[in-house]
């Protein structure tokens, strides 16, 4: 008897999982997959335990803070609407914004200023919405017929955006310009999916994805999208970032070659070369770049989908990798990075029991603070019933945005700017 058979026999369960148990799990999963269902309705027992752990740790501080919040609200019961949270002045503060009501999942946001933002997501179909008041209100925008999802977005200047997603059985590139509605642009033949894009200017834009079982890079060259040659062996590209305000523009894309993570770079936008990847990384989850020497970061993972996460800095691309810079303790999930114009890098993620449906908005704040390298704070504020960080967000100047869900539906969050912290929020 060989050793693998021995292992199988020694670890054999008393009984194999039966159809009844699988049926129960299937029903639980069905409940979780309903579009738009608030997270609190889909918790499993383990997640509830996680929630209880958070809540238990929070209970002492939360009671005091709830009292403060209730006083601030002027009543005993929080109104069921998004609320601005004004906490201690010298701490990171979050403000919730207007609801993006029809979105079942917000997938990307781009803000070119503190007031002008665009968001895309997936609801019954693809959804796009714009805000010109810093997220206080959102206006939905019409999308071309047949667009089923938009999952990546880049807006180099106000009102001018590109987004990638799916529609009519294939990949879609949609664009909008100032004063014009969304339209789709022709995707090069053979491209089967587009996962990420980066547009450093209104005339320069790159998107990455797959072409069958190989990776694809498409380049907005001369006003139309063309496929760029991809180094042999790269099977998929999942994230791309390009520098802004630099000459030349540099782009960095990350993906997979079937057995290992890969990173590609270009300095002319047409010729992509394979970079040496950080030695210890087993996956490269995301790439993000800033302008004016701020560099490009990649978020690297160890040990699979929930491995340890670090970030590496490389700038310019001819230089060795800097880092790794460990993310704060407890953050083991990260699904995206964002580079603000000042070179600040923020990763979105959290502890293993994310989505942090535990202590509501508190957990988002905790995660945000952890990711920014600050000490976690005790949970504060109980005004929103459920929050999770769904994806990362924006490029351009501050504020940095976070996406989540409140008791009512999906909500965008942002960290207050220094000026706002000093001057208080607009009513």
């Amino acid at each position: 008897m060989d050793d693998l058979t021995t292992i199988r026999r020694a670890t054999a369960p008393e009984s194999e999982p039966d159809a009844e148990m699988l049926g129960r799990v299937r029903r639980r999963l069905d409940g979780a997959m309903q579009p738009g269902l608030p997270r609190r309705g889909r918790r499993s027992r383990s997640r509830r335990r996680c929630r209880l752990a958070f809540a238990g740790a929070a209970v002492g501080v939360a009671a005091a803070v709830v009292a403060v919040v209730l006083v601030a609200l002027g009543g005993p019961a929080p109104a069921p609407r998004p609320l601005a949270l004004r906490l201690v002045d010298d701490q990171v503060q979050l403000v919730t914004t207007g609801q993006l009501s029809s979105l079942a999942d917000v997938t990307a946001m781009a803000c070119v200023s503190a007031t002008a933002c665009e968001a895309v997501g997936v609801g019954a179909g693809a959804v796009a919405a714009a805000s010109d008041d810093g997220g206080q209100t959102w206006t939905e925008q019409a999308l071309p017929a047949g667009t089923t999802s938009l999952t990546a977005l880049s807006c180099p200047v106000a009102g001018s955006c590109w987004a990638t997603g799916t529609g009519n059985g294939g990949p879609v590139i949609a664009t909008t310009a100032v004063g014009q509605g969304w339209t789709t642009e022709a995707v090069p033949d053979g491209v089967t999916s587009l996962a990420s894009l980066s547009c450093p200017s209104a005339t320069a834009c790159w998107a990455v994805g797959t072409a069958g079982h190989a990776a694809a890079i498409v380049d907005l060259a001369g006003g139309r999208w063309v496929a760029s040659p991809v180094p042999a062996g790269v099977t998929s590209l999942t994230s791309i970032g390009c520098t802004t305000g630099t000459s030349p523009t540099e782009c960095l894309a990350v993906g997979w070659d079937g057995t290992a993570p890969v990173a590609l770079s270009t300095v002319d936008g047409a010729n992509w070369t394979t970079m040496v990847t950080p030695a210890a990384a087993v996956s490269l989850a995301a790439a993000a770049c800033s302008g004016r020497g701020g560099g490009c970061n990649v978020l690297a993972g160890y040990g699979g989908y929930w491995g340890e996460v670090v970030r590496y800095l490389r700038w310019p691309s001819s230089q060795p990798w800097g880092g790794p810079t460990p993310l704060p303790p407890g953050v083991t999930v990260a699904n995206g990075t964002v580079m603000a114009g000042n070179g600040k890098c923020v990763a979105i993620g959290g502890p293993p029991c994310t989505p942090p449906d535990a202590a509501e908005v508190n957990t988002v704040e905790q995660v945000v603070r952890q990711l920014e390298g600050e000490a976690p704070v005790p949970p504060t504020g109980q005004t929103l019933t459920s929050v999770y960080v769904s994806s990362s967000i924006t490029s351009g100047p501050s504020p940095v945005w976070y996406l989540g869900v409140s008791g009512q539906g999906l909500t965008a969050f942002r960290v207050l700017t220094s000026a706002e912290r000093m001057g208080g929020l607009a009513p």
Partner: protein
Amino acid sequence: MIAVRADGYCADDGACIEASLADPGRFAVLFDRHGRAVASYLAHRAPASAVEDLVSETFLAAFGSRDRYAAGQPDARPWLLGVATNVLRHHWRAENRRQALVERLRRWTPDRGDPPAEGTWTEVERVRHALDRLDPGTRDAIMLLAVADLTYDEIARALGVPVGTVRSRIFRGRRRLREWLEEDASWTT
């Protein structure tokens, strides 16, 4: 190529997952195709009382991270087993903390029986003990090979490591298991 037909049928797992981004219900087909395999794998690695929750956690976690599924991969089983492996790690971390607490409490309850001495272990207990002695990465690779019947390439996908690492882990792990089991066998002789 249209990967997802108008009636909702998706030919491969990658297409189903991509379609589920717009229509979350499409993800259910992943459970229908691979739920039993994932449950069986978890049943080999966790107590029966925990399996149902672990299967749920695995598919909920996979559902929540489906936007990060590597495009172009038609078979999601290695990915799902990788997610299951991570769910197991979190489960065992929590379980170890709980056991540590139980152990501390046990010191104050001397009437509770001690675990059996090593020399009286059955073969099953010896194999399980030897597996426990492996480092987690090696143990995961061995179990995905022995229990889930994944290929080396698929194990690499599941664990997010290069296939060369999988080969060396499995080679090293099998050698250690043999050595330890031969040593253990001498206890009872």
